[in-house]
């Protein structure tokens, strides 16, 4: 497991580009993934007794793991890495919305409900 601070810049840029809609995410078995050039980012979320853990991994084109950061929103981690935890949570939520086309589907169902 990597130290989150070592890759904070990459995470921040990935979040920024995702916010701008420049990074297309797709769903896969364990979460969501996207390709940037020959690299792949994978993000996953798990929950244990009310604590949420977000894991973000980067792989090269040979499927080698370049890094993986994993943060849980427990009081200790939040005390040390609150911003990083928030960034990963936001990135996961944006990836989910992007991959599952949440806005589009919600808009569609809203239109369908209007027609009833």
């Amino acid at each position, binding site marked *: 497991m990597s130290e989150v601070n070592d890759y904070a810049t990459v995470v921040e840029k990935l979040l920024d580009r995702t916010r701008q809609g420049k990074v297309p995410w797709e769903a896969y078995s364990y979460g969501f993934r996207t390709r940037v050039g020959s690299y792949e980012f994978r993000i996953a979320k798990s929950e244990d007794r009310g604590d949420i853990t977000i894991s973000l991994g980067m792989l090269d084109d040979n499927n080698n793991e370049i890094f993986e950061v994993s943060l849980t929103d427990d009081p200790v981690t939040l*005390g040390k890495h609150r911003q990083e935890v928030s960034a990963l949570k936001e990135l996961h939520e944006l990836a989910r919305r992007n991959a599952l086309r949440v806005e589009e589907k919600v808009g569609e169902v809203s239109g369908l409900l209007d027609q009833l």
Partner: protein
Amino acid sequence: MSHWIGLAFYIVTGIASISGAFLSWKAWKAGISARDAAREAKRAVRSANAAEALKELNQSASELLDFIQNDRMQAAAIRARDLFSQVGASRMRWRRFLEDDDALGTAQERVRKISLGLTANDGQIEQEVKQKLLTYCHATIKILSDESSKIIANIEQLEEKK
């Protein structure tokens, strides 16, 4: 005549022996049940002590929650440190009366994270962290309260069976 006297003697002594054996058996049985009753009473008292100890820990955890809610972080840090060791000690001591031994392990882990969370940023606690600390306190209080209630319920159930 002496033949009949001898026979009567054997019958009387035989009956006396059997009665003696029977009375001894009765006394032995009474002794056993008295010992069991004493053991049961001792166990009931210890169960009640365990329930009381968990109730006190619950009270302590409630005060920890109150300290955090009112931003008394130094007092909270000291309380969390003490509570961590007290929950650990109770877990060891009262293990045999707990329905779910893991529950106190979980409570202790929660208190450990509260303690570390309170000291992670030199006592400067942001709102999001404070909220999480309060969530952990509530979870700890629930575990301690549940375990204490389960012990009391078991004592009551045993009393009703008597």
